């Protein structure tokens, strides 16, 4: 079930209504049932994977909770890690590794044919496995008491607003909220609806109108002019941003109506002043996950410089690999790692002070530079393979045949400019907070404009949320 479908428009109010009609002690059952139904709408069978992951992590958590020291807890942590990474390996990375092994053998003229996995990637598998992993690691480290109630634990793993594409929540933050007896709160309803409205606008009006154009250009880049390639790169930057940002807002808004506050996943990332700043604003729940469960355990920056460089490289490459089992994602991660390191070095050498006034010339220049790097990196992210990415870059500089061209430029640019202006206006704040501060007329005018835009200007082709494939 996608957020931007009639199904969800009916599903959410029914769940919310039942949620507040039920006694708090039974709500977990409703939410768990609704979450499993929500997930099973994609593919019935894959619910087994969530159940399996849930049961193993629940068991490991309980067992670790019974033991005093890390050494005795370790086997259960390893079991949890092996289970979750095993699921990821089996469903997401198997072909990548088997192809790689075959290629290595081929180098030595040995023909090897390993089996190929051709089943559909379970939606959101990278999200819920990482979410449960964080729980196991926290329990192992003694930072979290194990959950004894299987129902609440299962709900933590599968809570429907954030099940398939995050935000990746920590147990310590989400579980108490799921247990709390929330009474209906008008402000939560109001702000939740505002976030859903703005999220739908970002996804349906911005991302979904850019999607077909980007697909068209990336399918045959050599047929387009340099200008069209540059436009498609720009459009993709905003497509992926609005797609994921829109999804996150709808997720946060849906949960908020039920009194549950999910973490923010985006904070005007394209106005970031550097790569480090960008990663504090883009997919925040994942970058903080990597920071807490990979970067810090490796020593973070409290190590020798060579080791720190290695840590940065590892974190970004793993982050790339998390997105997909393909070399393009690894290169994407590498681009960020290298630019992060170079930027860090330059900051030290040139003594760049990033503590500057918002929207000053310096801010704008630094944001433009960061945006350029990110847009270049997205080419690897979007391309099917390195050859395609190479074609995009080559055509960008040399120009393609120009046989094909992007149509409807004025509409696309209008959308882009409008969205950029909105993004600037909402710098470092969310639409719900912004709307709250506006006079009644302005506030309602934005509701009307956003609603009308969603209804009338939404892209009509079927483009699922990009991050669902991860």
């Amino acid at each position, binding site marked *: 079930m*996608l957020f*931007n*479908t*009639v199904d969800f*428009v009916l599903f959410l109010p029914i769940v919310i209504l039942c949620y507040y009609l039920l006694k708090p002690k039974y709500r977990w059952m409703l939410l768990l049932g609704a979450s499993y139904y929500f997930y099973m709408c994609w593919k019935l069978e894959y619910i087994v994977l969530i159940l399996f992951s849930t049961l193993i992590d629940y068991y490991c958590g309980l067992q670790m909770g019974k033991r005093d020291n890390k050494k005795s807890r370790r086997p259960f942590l390893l079991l949890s890690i092996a289970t979750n990474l095993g699921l990821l390996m089996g469903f997401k990375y198997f072909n990548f590794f088997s192809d790689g092994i075959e290629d290595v053998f081929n180098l030595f003229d040995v023909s090897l044919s390993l089996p190929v996995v051709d089943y*559909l990637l379970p939606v959101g598998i990278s999200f819920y496995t990482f979410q449960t992993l964080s729980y196991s690691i926290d329990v192992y480290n003694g930072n979290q008491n194990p959950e004894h109630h299987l129902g609440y634990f299962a709900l933590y793993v599968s809570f429907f607003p954030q099940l398939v594409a995050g935000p990746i929540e920590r147990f310590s933050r989400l579980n108490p909220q799921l247990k709390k007896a929330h009474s*209906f709160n*008008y402000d939560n*309803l109001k702000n939740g609806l505002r976030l859903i409205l703005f999220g739908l606008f970002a996804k*349906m009006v911005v991302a979904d109108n850019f999607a077909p154009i980007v697909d068209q250009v990336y399918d045959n880049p050599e047929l387009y002019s340099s200008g069209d390639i540059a436009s498609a790169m720009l459009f993709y930057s905003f497509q992926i941003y609005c797609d994921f940002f829109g999804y996150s807002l709808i997720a946060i808004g849906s949960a908020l109506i039920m009194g549950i506050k999910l973490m923010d996943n985006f904070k005007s990332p394209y106005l970031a002043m550097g790569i480090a700043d960008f990663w504090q604003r883009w997919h925040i729940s994942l970058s903080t996950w990597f920071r807490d469960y990979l970067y810090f355990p490796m020593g973070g920056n409290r190590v020798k410089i060579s080791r720190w460089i290695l840590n940065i490289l590892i974190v970004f490459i793993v982050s790339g690999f998390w997105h997909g089992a393909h070399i393009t994602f690894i290169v994407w991660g590498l681009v960020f790692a290298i630019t992060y390191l170079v930027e860090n070095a330059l900051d030290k050498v040139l003594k760049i002070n990033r503590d500057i006034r918002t929207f000053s010339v310096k801010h704008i220049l630094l944001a433009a530079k960061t945006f350029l790097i990110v847009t270049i990196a997205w080419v690897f992210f979007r391309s099917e393979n390195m050859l395609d990415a190479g074609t995009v870059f080559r055509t960008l500089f040399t120009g393609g045949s120009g046989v094909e061209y992007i149509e409807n430029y004025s509409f696309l640019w209008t959308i882009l400019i409008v969205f950029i202006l909105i993004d600037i206006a909402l710098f470092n704040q969310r639409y719900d907070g912004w709307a709250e501060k506006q006079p009644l007329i302005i506030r309602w005018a934005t*509701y*009307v404009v956003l*609603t*009308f835009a*969603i*209804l*009338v200007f*939404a892209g*009509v082709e*079927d483009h699922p949320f990009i991050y669902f494939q991860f």
Partner: protein
Amino acid sequence: MKILKKIALRFIIFLGLLIGLNIFYIFFFLENDLQKHSPIINQVRAVPQDTEVLYIGESSNNTAASIDIDKRAISDFLADHYPSLNFADITKPASHSGIYKTLLRHLEHAPKIKTVIVTLNMRSFNAEWINSGLEIPLRKSMLLLQNRPPLFNRFMLSFKGYPITTEKERWKRIKKDWMESKLHLPHPFTYPTTFDWRTHIEEAGVNDENGIRNEKLTNLVRDYVSTYAFELDLKTNPRIKDFNAIIKLAKKNNWNLVFNLLAENIEKAELLGGKPLSYLMRENRDKLVHYFTDKGVTVVDNLEALPDEQFIDKDWPTEHYFEMGRKIIGKNVANAIQKFHPEAYSPKNYQIIFQSHFHNDCEGETTWSRMETTTDEQAFSGKFSSKTDAENEFSLSFEFPFTNIPDSTKNSIEISMMLKAEVIEETVAFVVDIRGEKIERYWASCSLKPMALETNGWQRIHHLFILPDRVLDGEIISIYLLNSSGEPIYVDDIDILFQ
């Protein structure tokens, strides 16, 4: 309670705003959306105000073979029998009762319609068609035409209020339907379901006369079985529900409703699938005829009206007929609607034509191939001519069964036409193309450069092609003007004389 009031008040205000937005949408955006997402509306709007009989169908109506002398649609042949009545047609490929139902709701502008003839295609009731990939764009294109506030229709379009299924999911459903489709025959039958029958064909294969598995034949048999080996469930089949809605609509509008059950290639079905397959087809036909006749609908049973040779597609089951086939279907429907328009009925008999002189004034009354090249930009006579340019290299083309030309006139062809061109390059030429299984293809061209003037006015040009004896056994002949120059050239009043 206070909160509930607050919410209710805002909800009402928002609803009011939506009503206002709906009006705003109708005035400024609806037409653009209709043209973009539901262009079929133009065909519905093109139904003239004074239409008395409306024929609505899918590609069977207007699909013609290149060798057809008269390439007109079934609806045109039907109209031949009622020269005094005003006929119109709406033809949308791959459509079915669900689509017709929506389109028929938009005919308020044609209040004189007395009779509506709706195509009933037996294939459209099967699992493969119901779950076809074509359904997604079709259903999507119908959303804006639903009988609801236009802004709500746009909401349904934006929020994907139509079935979205992947190829894999569709095949899963089709397979499930085949597995659940029990086949009941009057005698013991080896395959209890469509799926079992189909699987057996795929596994065992069909052998040719030398006893070797023939893939093409195997696929054909499998396709016929998949298409026709089902038992129609009148209670659950979605097409029946849609046809019932059409009946309701017809009653409301006082239309005489006619269901034109199209001809299927039952002869070939029996040859490929044996008597059990033709039995199932006939059973389904009987169910449809009885069911709809009982509901007061006139059903024209064409199921077995055409022999195998009248079907154009030989490699898969379709309802695309050659000229004579379309004429027969048109005639059968004409007979059936006689009771509604007895005074206007003027039966017409068709016969195979042997002809050696052909003329086309590009006005559309004589249908040749590439009618899409006709334009009203220029004309020597009437309003239209055929235009060739960078988009269309080939002019309006004469295509004809060469076997229907008397042998005594197969010595030469004199081509004559009016031409208007400012620039004529070497690559502009008359082309004669004769092909057939028994002859080596004959392709001759003659550049127009030496015979035409580069002028802004019309001029008559002509050329005589002498045909070699070896083309006598040719099957199809094509004659056209080839313009590879990209410069616009108009032709009109094309005259072809076999001598």
